[in-house]
């Protein structure tokens, strides 16, 4: 019959006969942590040693104290703060002679070591195999949730950080000494920036809880408290689509279909195959459209996330122009030309007006009355609805990059779109984010049955081209101004970085 380690070490005859005997152990003196200040001696002497693995405290100053499952005795020295010793360091307890430890005149045990732990030999052998040193530093789900709630009470934004002064005021409520708190800060503030992110805050809070519960602070930050480890354990926030607000002209009430909200999920491949308003519908145009959409769609967005909004087939080709009295179909049936739009205002380009493109492209009443510019020519004739058929189904693709692909007969005017995230919907945006280029537009080839355009209409087209060139010139000038501003900002940034280098030099060995 071979003896195991526990039997050899303790040589208990009762254990050899199959009887479980609990053998108390005494912690070694070298593992005790002596306190510096007398106040903490008195305060810590009254509280038993606790485990940080217990449920999180209800509030930072008052930590919940739950004893370990193995059971510590309630005896505690008034001069030493005891910690569980490694299993190899424990010695069998010799029963002291004289009065029993429970009596009123009981003497303290050897070296006033008061932390007595009871173990069976079987439990001793099991715990030798377990990874005991990492246990106190493992953050449970319950603790993590509590730490996150505490962080949010100080900083509502989880992706932000807590400044040093706020964290100092918060952590001093734990009643730990300043040197210990300073050391905990050194361990938890991994990037040494004087502020705590959420993982760093959780690590610091857990170290404080562990220290309050009697565990000695580690020499280095344990792997389970590293920011990378804790960051991976946090639930990742759901990816929210950004909100875009359009400043373009909206359709009039009589042109808006009733079922605009009808959404259909399609894949990117299917989206490229919807009817394209071209004359012959060649494969080249389809391929170009498919390439455009594949480039615009980010890699991490699944194909099922792309939604299409199909408009009814009786919509007019130009969705952006409103007519007061008659619809386009009635006008086409009568063979009338649509009414001429009001004249454009005179373009006086300045820095302020270049930043606000709406003033360039929207008509204004005073300019209309002044009559400085001749009214623009009539629009070119549109194909009949019978010729158009169901091929002209207009769709607007809503997907993660929020790129609108619209189809119209002539190149549309540049539409100014403003990026407004949910959390910054009220903030003013920079001009660089607001001034985007014109959206990608696919032009419709004229139908072969359309009547030949008169010279007047050709002049109208040339005038429209000239107007678009002027708009392009405005955009180019705006682009150059923004580029200049960007260059100045870059130079300023480089200067600031140089100053930062002088303030905090890079270590070069």
């Amino acid at each position: 019959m071979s003896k195991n380690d526990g039997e050899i070490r303790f040589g208990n005859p009762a254990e050899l006969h199959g009887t479980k005997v609990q053998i108390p152990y005494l912690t070694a003196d070298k593992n005790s942590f002596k306190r510096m200040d007398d106040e903490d001696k008195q305060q810590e002497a009254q509280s038993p040693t606790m485990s940080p693995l217990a449920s999180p405290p209800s509030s930072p100053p008052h930590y919940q104290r739950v004893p370990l499952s193995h059971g510590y005795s309630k005896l505690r020295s008034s001069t030493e703060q005891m910690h569980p010793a490694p299993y190899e360091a424990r010695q069998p307890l010799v029963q002291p002679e004289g009065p029993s430890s429970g009596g009123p005149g009981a003497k303290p045990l050897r070296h006033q070591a008061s932390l007595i732990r009871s173990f069976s030999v079987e439990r001793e052998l099991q715990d030798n195999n377990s990874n005991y040193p990492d246990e106190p530093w493992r953050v449970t789900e319950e603790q993590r949730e509590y730490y996150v709630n505490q962080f949010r009470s100080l900083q509502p934004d989880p992706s932000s950080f807590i400044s040093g002064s706020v964290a100092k005021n918060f952590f001093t409520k734990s009643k730990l000494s300043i040197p210990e708190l300073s050391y905990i800060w050194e361990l938890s503030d991994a990037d040494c920036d004087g502020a705590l992110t959420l993982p760093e805050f959780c690590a610091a809070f857990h170290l404080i809880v562990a220290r309050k519960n009697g565990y000695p602070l580690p020499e280095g930050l344990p792997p389970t408290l590293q920011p990378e480890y804790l960051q991976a354990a946090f639930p990742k926030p759901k990816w929210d689509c950004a909100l875009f607000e359009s400043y373009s002209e909206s359709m009039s009430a009589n042109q808006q279909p009733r079922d605009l909200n009808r959404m259909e999920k399609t894949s990117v491949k299917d989206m490229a195959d919807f009817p394209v308003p071209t004359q012959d519908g060649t494969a080249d145009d389809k391929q170009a459209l498919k390439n455009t959409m594949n480039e615009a769609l980010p890699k991490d967005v699944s194909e099922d996330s792309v939604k299409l909004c199909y408009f009814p087939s009786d919509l007019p080709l130009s969705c952006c122009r409103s007519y007061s009295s008659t619809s386009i179909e009635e006008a086409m049936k009568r063979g009338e030309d649509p009414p001429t739009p009001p004249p454009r205002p005179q373009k006086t380009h300045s820095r302020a007006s270049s930043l606000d493109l709406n003033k360039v492209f929207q008509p204004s009443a005073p300019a209309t009355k002044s009559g400085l510019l001749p009214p623009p020519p009539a629009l070119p004739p549109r194909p009949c609805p019978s010729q158009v058929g169901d091929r002209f189904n207009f769709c607007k693709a809503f997907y993660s990059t929020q790129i609108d692909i619209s189809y119209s007969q002539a190149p549309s005017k540049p539409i100014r779109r403003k990026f407004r995230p949910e959390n910054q919907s009220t903030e003013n945006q920079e001009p660089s984010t607001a001034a985007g280029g014109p959206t990608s537009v696919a032009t419709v080839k004229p139908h072969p049955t359309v009547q030949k355009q008169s010279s007047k209409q050709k002049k109208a087209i040339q005038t429209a081209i000239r107007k678009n060139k002027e708009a392009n010139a405005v955009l180019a000038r705006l682009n150059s101004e923004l580029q200049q501003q960007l260059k100045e900002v870059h130079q300023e940034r480089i200067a600031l970085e140089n100053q930062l280098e002088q303030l905090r030099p890079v270590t070069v060995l």
Partner: protein
Amino acid sequence: MVHTSMDVADKTISTRGKALVKQREPYLGLLYPIEDYKAYGYVTNSKVKFVMVVDSSNTALRDNEICSMIRKLHSFCTDMVCNPFYNPGDRIQSRAFDKVVTSIMIQVC
């Protein structure tokens, strides 16, 4: 010796301030050599002075190595000051800073 080195550092800083306003080289170089020791200086933008005293018999240490060592010390000192529980002017009681200084000393020796 250290106090004398501090006086020399102050004089060097004032001289540099008059001559070159824009050029702020924090490393002051050799301040005060005596028979057995050499004192090197370094001043930060916030006028914190570092004085490093080296044994003269140690010929392995060149000027650029001492400069890089003091720069490293300055960097870790900056990290230590970022600790909100440290009050500027108090005695430095940081284990991490002690480790850095010890590693520098071991590297020198």
